[in-house]
Structure formats: structure tokens, C-alpha cells
């Protein structure tokens, strides 16, 4: 039986960790993710879990210890934000290429500099090509649900990849929300035990992390890419099983009032909540607007997105990060690339919004939909836009 609780996003994720009872959590504090290891170390201190908590001296060592523990066959997790994720960078690639299903809560925060503790997506978007699966969530409920599902996704025999579970700093991590939590036994049964194909502590000795020269390196990267492709199917399978358990439905992305939408928005994380409000209001006014909220950014659901956007005339792609390409931010790039050759005449502008925690209001979002309708009417629009910045 599920129970209704009021928790912050960080609490919800830490509770998920408690219910999963991993072998090792190795973490280093950084705002706004600090509470996750803080709550977890309390669970350890109270004997509520049987895990080892390794209070490392940096995020680099956090990910290094996670790699060692996961290579030892353990179920391993950590949490970080912003510069902490940046300090892990080198090890992110090594975790992924070593095919170690570490689960990492990324509490999204702007990347320095200038230093800023508030939310945007520059941290995890910077790590988008590190070979990690990236799952994003709108609120505490989704952060909790995604964290539990991440175990099964990453450890699936066809995947064996690390997973980032991303949610917005402060907005989701610190705000207290009502959510439904599974029973401990339900989570335990859902995640099961990790079965590592190879382990440093297994029956036979193994060597991990060898020097891999031109005769083999390329094949290993190819296998890694295949695992990421496989993840798409596995994400859906795990979601279906999770729905049976909880009644909560998840996919590669969420479609909100997209049935007959003419103007749509593609967005990630908590601002989707604000945007849904706007969609409701504009729908009440008879305007055909809809929204797509990306859940799986890696792997990127390109074909599925093309199908979902088939009938829209204009779609605004919202990035809470600037990619500094001079062309388009990361999500905008992905969506346009997916639509290439499949969307003759479709209007696809990008909007960069909310950097460094700048508030995004319903008026801001409504102005984007209004831009789209104007573009549909006149055929004129800017491709690269900033929302809510003083120029």
C-alpha cells in the first residue's frame, strides 16, 4: 500500500535510497544536493540501512569510489550538483565506458562561473555526452519514481550503464510537496538484487580499466553506443512495470494536451509545471496549445518526438542552458536535428530561459506561445531567442 507523504525532492530521493538499501553511497556535499547524503548518512547512523557511506574528500573521489564499488559488484549511488558534477567529469566517462550502473542524483544547478547556487541545467547538459543515461523529472514525485526506476534501467543486462536522475535545484530539491511513496517491501521487490556480470570480488579474478589501443577501443565504444540505444526500450519496460506497481505512468517524454495542438513547447524539468498552467489557461481560451516534457534526454527519443510533433505547426524548444554554439542550445539542437527531413515548413524556434535561477513566470511562457501563433500567421520569427533577460 502506497502512503501519502509531504517531502522535499531531496528527502524523497534520500528515502528512495533508504528503501533501495544500496551497498555503497560515496558522496561529497554541494548545494543544493547536500541534503541527499546528509539524510542518507543519518539512515546509516540509525541502522536503517546496511550500506557503507563513504564521506569522500571531493566529487572526483566520490565518483572514483563509486566506480570501485560498482566494479566490486555492488549497488552504488551518489548525488551532486553543478561544479561537483564538473569535478566528476573525467570519471563520468570512465564509469560509462566501464559499463558500471552507478545511479547519480543530479540536483540541477548553474555551473560556475560566475558562481551561482540556483537552478538551471548547465551542469547535466554539459555532461550529456558522457555516456550516462539522463532521466529528468518535474517534481519530487517524479524524482522519487525516477530514482527507483533508474536502478532497474542501468542494471538491465542489455544496458549496464550509469544513470543520472536529474531534478531542479531548490525548486524541486527543497520545496516540500505531497507525494506517494511505495512501501519499503515494494521497492525492495521492484529493484531486486544486483547481478553484476563481472565483479572484482567474484568467483574468478577480473581486470578492469585496461589500456585499450586502436585494435579494440572503437569496438568497445560501439558496444557502449548500442547499450545506450537499448536503454530506450528498457526505460519503457521498466516504466510499464512501475505503472503496474504504482499506477503512475512514465514514458520517454510526457505529452500534455498535444492531441490537436498547433503550437507546442518542448521543455525539461520543473518549468513544465508552470507551462502546463499556461496550457490550461490558453486551452480555456480556445487556443490549441500543448506541451512535451522530456524525461529521457539520453537516450534521446528522436523518432518518438517526431511522431508526437507531427501535426503541430510551430514548436518552441526551451533550454535552461546556453550551449554557446552561436546556433542553438542543447535541447533545441536535438529537437531540430530529430525533425530534420521530417518536418517540412515547421516553425522551430529555441528559447533560452531561467539561467542562474532567473524566475520564469506564466506570462513569460504565454509570451512564447503567442510568439508561435504570430509566427504561424506571418511566417516570420527569430530562431534563437532569450526569454526574460535584460538586453
Amino acid at each position, binding site marked *: 500500500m502506497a502512503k501519502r507523504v509531504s517531502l522535499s525532492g531531496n528527502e524523497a530521493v534520500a528515502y528512495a535510497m533508504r528503501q533501495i538499501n544500496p*551497498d*555503497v553511497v*560515496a558522496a561529497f556535499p554541494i548545494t543544493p544536493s547536500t541534503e541527499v547524503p546528509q539524510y542518507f548518512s543519518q539512515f546509516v547512523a540509525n541502522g536503517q540501512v*546496511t*550500506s*557503507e557511506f*563513504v*564521506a*569522500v*574528500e*571531493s566529487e*572526483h*573521489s566520490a565518483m*572514483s*569510489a*563509486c*566506480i*570501485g*564499488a*560498482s*566494479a*566490486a*559488484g*555492488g549497488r*552504488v549511488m551518489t548525488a551532486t550538483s553543478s561544479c561537483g558534477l564538473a569535478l566528476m567529469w*573525467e*570519471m563520468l566517462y*570512465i564509469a560509462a565506458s*566501464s559499463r558500471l550502473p552507478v545511479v547519480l542524483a543530479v540536483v540541477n544547478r548553474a555551473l560556475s562561473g560566475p558562481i551561482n547556487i540556483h537552478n538551471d541545467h548547465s551542469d547535466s547538459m554539459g555532461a550529456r555526452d558522457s555516456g550516462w543515461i539522463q532521466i529528468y523529472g518535474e517534481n519530487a514525485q517524479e524524482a522519487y519514481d525516477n530514482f527507483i526506476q533508474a536502478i532497474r534501467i542501468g542494471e538491465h543486462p542489455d544496458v549496464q550503464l550509469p544513470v543520472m536522475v536529474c531534478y531542479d535545484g531548490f525548486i524541486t530539491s527543497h520545496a516540500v510537496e505531497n507525494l506517494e511513496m511505495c512501501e519499503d517491501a515494494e521497492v525492495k521487490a521492484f529493484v531486486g538484487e544486483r547481478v553484476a556480470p563481472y565483479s*572484482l*570480488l*567474484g568467483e574468478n*579474478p*577480473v*581486470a*578492469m*580499466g*585496461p*589500456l*585499450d*589501443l586502436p585494435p*579494440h577501443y572503437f569496438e568497445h565504444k560501439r558496444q557502449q553506443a548500442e547499450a545506450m540505444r537499448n536503454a530506450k526500450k528498457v526505460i519503457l519496460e521498466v516504466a510499464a512495470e512501475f505503472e503496474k506497481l504504482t499506477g503512475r505512468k512514465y514514458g520517454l517524454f510526457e505529452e500534455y494536451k498535444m492531441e490537436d495542438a498547433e503550437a507546442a513547447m518542448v521543455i525539461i524539468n520543473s518549468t513544465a509545471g508552470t507551462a502546463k498552467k499556461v496550457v490550461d489557461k490558453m486551452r480555456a481560451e480556445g487556443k490549441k496549445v500543448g506541451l512535451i516534457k522530456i524525461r529521457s534526454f539520453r537516450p534521446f527519443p528522436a523518432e518518438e518526438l517526431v511522431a508526437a510533433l507531427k501535426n503541430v505547426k510551430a514548436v518552441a524548444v526551451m533550454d535552461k542552458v546556453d550551449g554557446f554554439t552561436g546556433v542553438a542550445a542543447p535541447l533545441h539542437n536535438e529537437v531540430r536535428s530529430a525533425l530534420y527531413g521530417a518536418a517540412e515548413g515547421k516553425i522551430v524556434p529555441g528559447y533560452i530561459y531561467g539561467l542562474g535561477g532567473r524566475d520564469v513566470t506564466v506570462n513569460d511562457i504565454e509570451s512564447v506561445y503567442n510568439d508561435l501563433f504570430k509566427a504561424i500567421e506571418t511566417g516570420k520569427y527569430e530562431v534563437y531567442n532569450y526569454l526574460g533577460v535584460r538586453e
Partner: protein
Amino acid sequence: MPNLKELSKKPARLTGGHRMCAGCGAPMVVNWVLKALKEEDKAVTCSATGCLEVSTCLYPYTAWKDSFIHSAFENAAATISGVEACYVAMKRNGKIDDTYKFIAFGGDGGTYDIGLQSLSGAMERGHDMVYVCYDNGAYMNTGIQRSSATPKGADTTTSPAGKVIPGKTQTRKDLTEIIAAHNIPYVAQTVPAIPGTKYMFDLYNKAEKAIYTKGAAFLNVLTPCPRGWRCDTSTELDLIKAAVDTCFWPIYEVENGVYKLNYKPAEKKPITEWLKPQGRFRHLFKPENEHLIAEIQAEVDRRWEALLHLCGEK
């Protein structure tokens, strides 16, 4: 006192066929350390990126008979600490029966410099592990660049002896002392096994103590690199003897905070005996650089005196 005949019968846990250079001291050190493992005990070994790693574990081969992991350059200590933490959790939860020991190896670059933070963290946390530094006094894998373990005056590719600057101008960092300051159960400094010396079994004995002392332990082993030292492979161990006899590299240990000098040369030799046979110090013997040798001697003397005090020898 270990029996050499019996020890020689113990199978090597780092096999031959690896690709370290002829005369490299690192595999000798590794094998003597691993010899100290009880045969029935399993081990997980780990190496920082460096000569040892790239020469002993090239896909699809490995020279390590025990489980081995390499992840990056600066984090061997953190990586093995994660393995150890997982073992502790699994042992506690009844998921594993065997006894495992955890041993990480790193050169001086991966230990004194880029890996110092990770090492310090792992030592302070007190994982039941041994970290072995094979200190050959430079980044040899990338082509003999200076490290903070490089002795003063050495000619390396990033502290070259030029017309104006005569090699490395700084004295070497004392990492053994830094780790001793972590107040872990066991820290020791030693050299490879050299037949005929009184300290032939010092590395073996210290490895055994380090492995079978609960908690974090650290071994710092002066290890010859004929390429970097520009010395003859056939006489490189004489150089190690010179390092000990000149008191450039004292053999001592710190057990639960208590210092012990394990070998005191009958006669302290002048530092030139260590410097002279090595090509990397050749320029120091030019007349205009004589003052540098005097400075190096003074620094060795100062550190030796300080150590004698710590060891209760004075």
C-alpha cells in the same frame, strides 16, 4: 626472518610477460609486496595510470593474477577505497565469504602530486587498504618530467639543466612524513629487496605488516628507473644501496605514531655517491655547480638529523 627458499616457491602474483622496461624496479616492488599476501587470501589490486598500469594491463591481457582495477591517474586511492567499502558492506550482509586484501600502487606522479588529495582522503577515512608508492622520482611514463618527488638538481624534461638553470631547483617533498601526519596505523619507507644487504627483507616485512594491520597503511619505496635516472640496469641496485647509505632515503617505519629507524648505515656516505653514477645529476659536477652539491648535502643532513630525533636515535 622469512626464509628465502620458501618465499621463492610462492608463485608470483604479477606474472612475467608484462611490458615494463628491462631493469624497471616497479614490478620487483609489486611482486615483493604481493608475496606478503597469505596464499589463501584473495586481493584486489589497483594501479594509478602510469608505466605500471599501461604495461601490465593491455586489453585483452593482464599480468595480474588477482582482480585488478585501473580507473584514472589521480584516484587509485579513492578507487580502491570504493572497492573496500563494497567488500565491507557485502561481508556484513553475508553476500561474500572470502577474505580480501586491498592494495593500490602508484608512481610518485600519481601519488605525491596529482593523486595526493585522493590518497590523503582515503588514508584519513581509514579504509583497510595498503597504498604503495613506487617512487622513481619523476613522471617516467610521459617521458621523465619533474614531480615533487624529483630530487633537487635532477635534469628532467620539464626541469632541464640549461645554461641558466641547473636542473630542478626545489628539494623533494617528504611524502612519507605527510602520510605519517595522518596518524594512520602504519607508514613505512623502504627499498626493493637487495640480496646481501641487512635490509633485504625489509620490503617484504613491511608489506606483510601493512597488509595485515587493520586500517590504512602506506609504503613508500624508492624504485629505480634506468631511463629516468640514466643509470646502468646491471648496477641500479647499487644506486639504491647508495641512497640508503648516504641517508638520502632512510629506511624507517611509523607504527601507531612510534618512529623506528630500521637500518642505520655504519658509515654515512657523502651524497656524491648517490649523485655521481646517475646521468640526471651529471651537470652538478661541473665546477660552477659545486655549491649545489653542498646545498644538497646540507639538506640531506638536516633531514637525517630530524629523523634521528623522531626515531629516538638522538
